[in-house]
């Protein structure tokens, strides 16, 4: 019964989405309060019904109801509960359900927290949100219904793809979708503003928390996906420039540009037209990502769907929303009033610089991702665009951005003084030069540019700290005053500094991993000791072991560093019972911020095993840096001026809100 209930709830949600798509916007056009007033309750009801539907599907998974085709194909009764639940979105139909669920929940959140929004804007935003929901609900119901049943239920399910049975991948898609779909709110705000023809600083203040929220989740999702690929795929790499990764990275780049340009719009009413474009592009790229992953046009780990009907349907959604919103933009944007003036050297100028480079980098990634598809469909020639392409396009575009990063926060609005900013950064520059020299002198191996890259990372981190020190007037006033100033700093200032420090840490991790990792591929006999980087590994034992739904062959290593025991590692080859599919379980040993990585090879006998071993210095910073960035985003988000429903104390804020209210 539950499957039918879920299906029915989904159809009702579609009907509600259709109502929400039309009535509020009609009300906003005609100034009918009652019609506009339907938006919020209908959005809540729609979220409720989508949730019921999703819960029904989850229930079918939890109870292993194999009469449901989707459950049969992707679950197994012996699977641990967490993977039964994560199995819901480990497949095409279920992941689209998750997409729509998050979309509906975000819509409901706008309805709940958007009390201070002008009525027409709120009505329009929720209507646009419902257009997206309608499109995807139709997509699910017509091409990807997860509630289809078998007439006779099979006894046992086919199990979830074993490499997806992992905690990392259980939470990676929800995080990523929270990011993707979060940008739909920014998109809805942008389209609503274009329809309304009204765009002011207040708009940026409403949009920025949503953009930040989406950005936070997307950052976490990408970092989680990267870590998952790192330890689960057994290749030891953390980023492959795989089209699916790029699909999530492009919205991140544009989303990062958006949260920066929205600051300019909020503070100075400048860059309005550009910010709206970014809001549209961020979601368009999210849709593109959904298309690339869900249509099966890519040859990639993530392409579970191979049905061309689905591809065409998503392509239609893609063209409708991207084409439609960009046309609306081209039509309405010229009518928007231009905002505040600024000199090229200014805070605004620095943020424009940031936006230019992020957008250019995103364009380069877009070309690298779509070029092979375009070339193949035009000429039939098959090519692969891999890491070399992105290293020689993306990386050079990031370097100016990173160099400029510490300068931005130190420049004044409207007209800045580059010389003064440089003076304030002298300490940071000094430290980074010193570190560069020390690394060059004392760290052996690695490419010549690596010490410079470390210096750049240090500069970014020290520059962020210099901004805080500057705001606290450190050394210029008594320490006590400085401390109280630090305490009094707005959270957004801390947010900026912490997020920038996080970026510096990520760079540090990337450089450490890329420049100084040691790799060894070797056949090891029982009792034999191999040396990799700073570690010595002894193959202690080889033995079989049984898991809940798999069997594995384990290789246990004892690891020492400078003669001292630092731990044991168990790498394994797993075979999952239901699908008879082998997977590699790499073993990781964390030592400080470095990791030792052991991936077992295929030929494993009674007394010897092939292994690939890496010593990866500083590698953890890659992901911890992302976490630090996320904390920075969280601090910004908690800044009191964004706090939803917070009493408006400052007069200036009231003034800013008035024209729109």
């Amino acid at each position, binding site marked *: 019964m539950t499957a039918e209930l879920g299906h029915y709830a989904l159809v009702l949600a579609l009907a509600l989405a259709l109502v929400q798509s039309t009535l509020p916007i009609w009300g906003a056009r005609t100034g009918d309060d009652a019609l506009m007033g339907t938006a919020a309750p209908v959005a809540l009801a729609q979220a409720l019904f989508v949730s019921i539907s999703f819960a029904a599907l989850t229930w079918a998974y939890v109870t292993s109801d194999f009469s449901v085709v989707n459950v049969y194909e992707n679950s197994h009764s012996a699977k641990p509960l967490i993977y039964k639940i994560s199995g819901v979105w480990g497949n095409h139909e279920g992941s689209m359900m998750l997409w729509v669920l998050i979309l509906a929940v975000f819509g409901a959140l706008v309805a709940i927290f958007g009390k201070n929004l002008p009525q027409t804007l709120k009505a329009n935003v929720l209507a646009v949100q419902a257009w997206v929901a309608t499109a995807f609900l139709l997509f699910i119901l017509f091409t990807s219904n997860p509630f289809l049943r078998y007439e006779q239920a099979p*006894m046992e399910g086919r199990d979830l793809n074993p490499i997806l049975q992992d905690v990392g991948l259980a939470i990676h898609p929800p995080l990523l979708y929270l990011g993707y779909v979060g940008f739909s709110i920014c998109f809805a705000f942008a389209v609503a503003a274009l329809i309304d023809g009204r765009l002011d600083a207040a708009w940026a203040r409403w949009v920025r928390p949503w953009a930040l929220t989406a950005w936070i989740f997307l950052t976490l999702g990408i970092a989680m996906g990267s870590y998952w690929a790192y330890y689960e795929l057994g290749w030891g790499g953390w980023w492959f420039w795989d089209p699916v990764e790029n699909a999530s990275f492009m919205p991140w780049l544009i989303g990062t540009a958006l949260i920066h340009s929205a600051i300019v719009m909020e503070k100075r009413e400048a860059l309005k037209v550009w910010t709206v474009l970014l809001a549209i592009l961020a979601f368009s790229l999210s849709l593109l990502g959904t298309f690339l992953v869900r249509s099966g046009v890519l040859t990639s780990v993530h392409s579970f769907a191979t049905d061309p009907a689905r591809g065409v349907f998503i392509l239609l959604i893609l063209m409708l929303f991207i084409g439609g919103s960009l046309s609306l933009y081209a039509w309405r944007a010229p009518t928007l009033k231009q905002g505040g003036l600024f000199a090229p050297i200014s805070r605004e100028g620095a943020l424009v610089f940031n936006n230019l480079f992020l957008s250019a980098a995103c364009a380069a990634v877009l070309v690298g991702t779509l070029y092979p598809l375009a070339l193949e469909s035009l000429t039939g020639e098959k*090519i692969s665009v891999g890491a*070399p392409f992105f290293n020689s396009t993306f990386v050079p575009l990031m370097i100016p951005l990173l160099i400029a990063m510490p300068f931005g926060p130190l420049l004044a609005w409207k007209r800045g003084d580059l010389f003064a900013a440089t003076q304030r950064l002298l300490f940071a520059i000094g430290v980074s030069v010193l570190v560069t020299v020390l690394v060059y002198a004392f760290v052996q191996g690695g490419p010549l540019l690596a010490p410079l890259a470390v210096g750049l990372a240090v500069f970014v981190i020290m520059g962020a700290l210099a901004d805080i020190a500057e705001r606290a007037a450190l050394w210029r006033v008594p320490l006590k005053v400085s401390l109280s100033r630090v305490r009094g700093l707005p959270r957004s200032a801390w947010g900026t500094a912490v997020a920038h420090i996080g970026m510096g840490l990520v760079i540090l991790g990337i450089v450490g991993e890329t420049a100084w990792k040691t790799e060894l591929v070797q056949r090891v006999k029982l009792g034999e000791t191999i040396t990799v980087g700073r570690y010595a590994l002894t193959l202690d034992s080889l033995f*079989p072991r049984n898991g809940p739904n798999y*069997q594995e*062959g384990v290789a246990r290593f004892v690891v020492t560093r400078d003669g001292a025991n630092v731990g044991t590692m168990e790498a394994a080859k797993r075979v999952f019972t239901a699908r008879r599919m082998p997977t590699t379980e790499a073993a990781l040993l964390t030592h400080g911020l470095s990791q030792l990585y052991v991936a077992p090879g295929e030929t494993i006998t009674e007394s010897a095993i092939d292994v690939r071993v890496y010593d990866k210095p500083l590698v953890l910073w890659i992901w911890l840096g992302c976490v630090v960035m996320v904390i920075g985003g969280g601090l910004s988000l908690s800044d009191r001026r964004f706090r939803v429903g917070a009493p408006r104390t400052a007069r200036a804020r009231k003034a800013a809100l008035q024209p729109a209210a």
Partner: protein
Amino acid sequence: MTRKQRRLVLIGSALAVLAVATGLVLSALNDSIVFFNSPSDVVEKGVPPGERIRLGGLVATGTVERGEKLAVSFKITDGKQAIPVSYTGILPDLFREGQGVVTEGSMGPDGVFRADSVLAKHDENYMPREVSDALKKQGYWQGKDAAADAAKAGTTPAGTTPAGPAAAGGAPAAPTVQH
């Protein structure tokens, strides 16, 4: 600066960044893309030795030989032509005879393809798209795969007992779907 000048600076710098990005992309597209070839392509086009390409097809049955120190040699076939490949290192989980693979490397002067990476995909039903395009009988290939699976089960590290091709055994072959 006047408003107009400021706008010019803005537009100018935007164009400059765009030009740099375009330049980088074009030069990278010239240098760092790798073309996919089937064994027939390699023979027909005469790919020059040393040029970096991707070679994909099925691992020909009975050709996988393991040498000293992780060296492996096998042949990649598309049914018409077969190219010998040599590789040193650890093979991916789903590498086996009769399975589709994509390798990257370059042809040696002796006509042996020297691969520095071997990719097989992480799904038992999955065949690299480039490979499946070049092949006609996919049903045949899948059958082979299941058989290879069962045969292999006896030698897997965990020493699992072969339980037959479970995927085929438990599944209703042509399910009737009820709405």
